[in-house]
């Protein structure tokens, strides 16, 4: 954390040095295996701890700078959940400042809350695994898409007492399905990898679909790895339930009406990597490379969260409670 004095004339330089150290700390947390939003919460708590500001306004400005830095470096897939959790954290700062007139007391309370939030988010994966494994029965066949650590936790927990099969999609363009499949195999789950385009073919053999989410919209729909909408549409036409395992800090106040309403990365028009080997593309050919898509709540059966099992209709109630 930057310990340099806050000088008026050098505000620009200081803030960029400050932001650099924020980013460094954030990446350190991620390397240690933390998920994005808990890492952001830890970093913001650290900022409060080591801040030399003497006023709430100054602290808020610093936290806003730190949050901006985090959002700039974070990958597109984490954008929705990071924006939601940093916003929630900042709102909480403002609210606490109204409660406590003494600055030191307020600061202490914020640090305490930050630690509590960090602890809760780390435990949420276990709670979700506990809740979600009850929906996996012996002998069932489950399809998954994307590389969610929460979903992996659910499967790992269920694999301790039940035998079931999982179909994992390749999840192009990054092909993360392979590492996900390896993880499941080492947990003792019977795993089959399929192409993203084979989902329609395989769907009638599947009992249910389980995916994670990068963010949950206000109406209970989810933002997830590109391809999730397709999987959900096929599942719905075959009457298979679609389950989503997601932590509650990913609940966000977004309300996308169309796919284009999601935040767009700068690399949207660039080809993905890896392109198929030995393929060269002429200049005139254009690319569109969305990272995520939005699955509407009508296609989702249930959400497994650390707040319990929710129907999509119940998400907005929980959001209101979170933001109050």
């Amino acid at each position: 954390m930057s310990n340099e004095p806050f000088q008026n004339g050098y505000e620009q330089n200081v803030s960029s040095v400050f932001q650099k150290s924020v980013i460094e700390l954030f990446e350190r947390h991620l390397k240690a295996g933390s998920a994005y939003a808990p890492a952001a919460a830890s970093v913001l708590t650290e900022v409060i701890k080591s801040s030399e500001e003497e006023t709430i306004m100054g602290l808020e400005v610093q936290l806003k700078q730190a949050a901006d830095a985090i959002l700039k470096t974070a990958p597109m897939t984490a954008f929705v959940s990071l924006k939601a959790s940093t916003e929630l954290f900042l709102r909480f700062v403002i609210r606490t400042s109204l409660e406590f007139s003494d600055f030191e007391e307020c600061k202490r309370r914020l640090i305490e809350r930050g630690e509590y939030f960090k602890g809760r988010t780390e435990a949420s994966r276990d709670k979700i695994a506990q809740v979600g494994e009850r929906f996996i029965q012996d002998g069932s066949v489950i399809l998954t898409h994307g590389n969610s650590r929460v979903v992996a936790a659910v499967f790992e927990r269920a694999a301790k007492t039940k035998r079931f099969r999982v179909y994992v999609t390749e999840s192009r363009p990054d092909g993360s399905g392979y590492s996900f499949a390896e993880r499941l195999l080492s947990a003792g789950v019977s795993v089959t990898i399929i192409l993203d385009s084979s989902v329609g073919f395989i769907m009638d053999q599947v009992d249910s679909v389980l995916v994670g989410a990068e963010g949950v919209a206000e109406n209970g729909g989810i933002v997830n790895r590109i391809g999730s909408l397709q999987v959900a549409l096929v599942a719905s036409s075959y009457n298979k339930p679609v389950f989503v395992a997601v932590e509650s800090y990913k609940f966000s106040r977004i309300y996308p009406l169309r796919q284009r309403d999601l935040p767009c990365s700068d690399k949207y028009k660039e080809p993905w990597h890896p392109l198929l080997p030995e393929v060269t593309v002429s200049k005139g050919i254009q690319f569109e490379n969305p990272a995520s898509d939005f699955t509407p709540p009508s296609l989702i059966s249930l959400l497994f969260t650390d707040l319990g099992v929710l129907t999509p209709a119940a998400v907005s109630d929980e959001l209101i409670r979170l933001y109050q």
Partner: protein
Amino acid sequence: MSYRSSTSSASLLGKETRRALSYLQQELREEKLSGWRVAKETLRLLRIVISSVSSSGLDKVEEAVRELGQELTRGYPRCFVAENMTRRVLKVIHEETSLDTSDPGRQLLGRSVKNVKAVKSNILEAINEIEDELDTVLPNITEQSLEHIHSNEVLLTFGYSQSVEEFLKSAAEKRHFEVIIAECELDYSGHRLAKSLSEENVDVTLISDAAVVALMSRVHKVIIGAQAIMADGSVLAASGTFMMAAAAKHYAVPLVICAGLHKLTPLFPHHPDNLYDMLSPCQVVQNPKVWNETWFRQLEMSCPRLDLIPSPYIRLLVTNSGGFSPSYVYRILNEFYDEIDTCLKYSS
């Protein structure tokens, strides 16, 4: 607290309780009681359990209630109403024990005897309130009947349900309508409803279950009862009702479920052990002459007791708290039950 089986000698249910419990289970097996009656009997049983547990500690009370809930879960056929009442009482116990302490983090153990008696009487009073609420279930459901049944409508119903019977009778006092009753081939309970309604001068037509789809296009509404309302708004009802729900969806006929909220359970219908309650195959083939034939013995027959109607098929749930859509069920769940009681096992 470690998991203990209920057959251990340290069981908290006394002889009197066990006798009452086995009597209730026998009545359930013979299916003589309506859901409402089951709720009342279970509450009576819970009152006995709570009063009879020694006053050494409140944790014993909760344990005893959980043990009773466990026994009721294992009853056959599975009665959700009995479990629900147990869960409601558990929620009351949680509320009372946390209100009693000034420090919410205090453990249940190490409590003074005087407090135990006070908390116990509070719990028993809360059970009385639940029972009073049960008494208002039928009146509250029937007073909504005029909102949903209009003159010269053709209604379709399935088998016998006490809520539906009262609902239709109450509307029949003011309006004139026609009711088509599918007889429910499992137990021919439709006949009972037909007799009861025709005594009130309602136009009744009794049909076989197979004719439901053929007549659906001429029906204005389908009104049925339920055995249980699940946590996602889907409903467990008599075997044969899903066929009716599918036909209703096809013809865009609204499906209305009349059920009291004592039937609302916090379970989700994705676990097969909630649903596959099978009856004896002798109800499928009722001619006793074939039962000893060798060819008969080689047949595999399944006779499920209940059908699951998923929430997209249901238009409205008419309950004692008013009418609402199945997607609203989660709100009421939080009011009635605590999440940790969903699984009625021993817990620390």
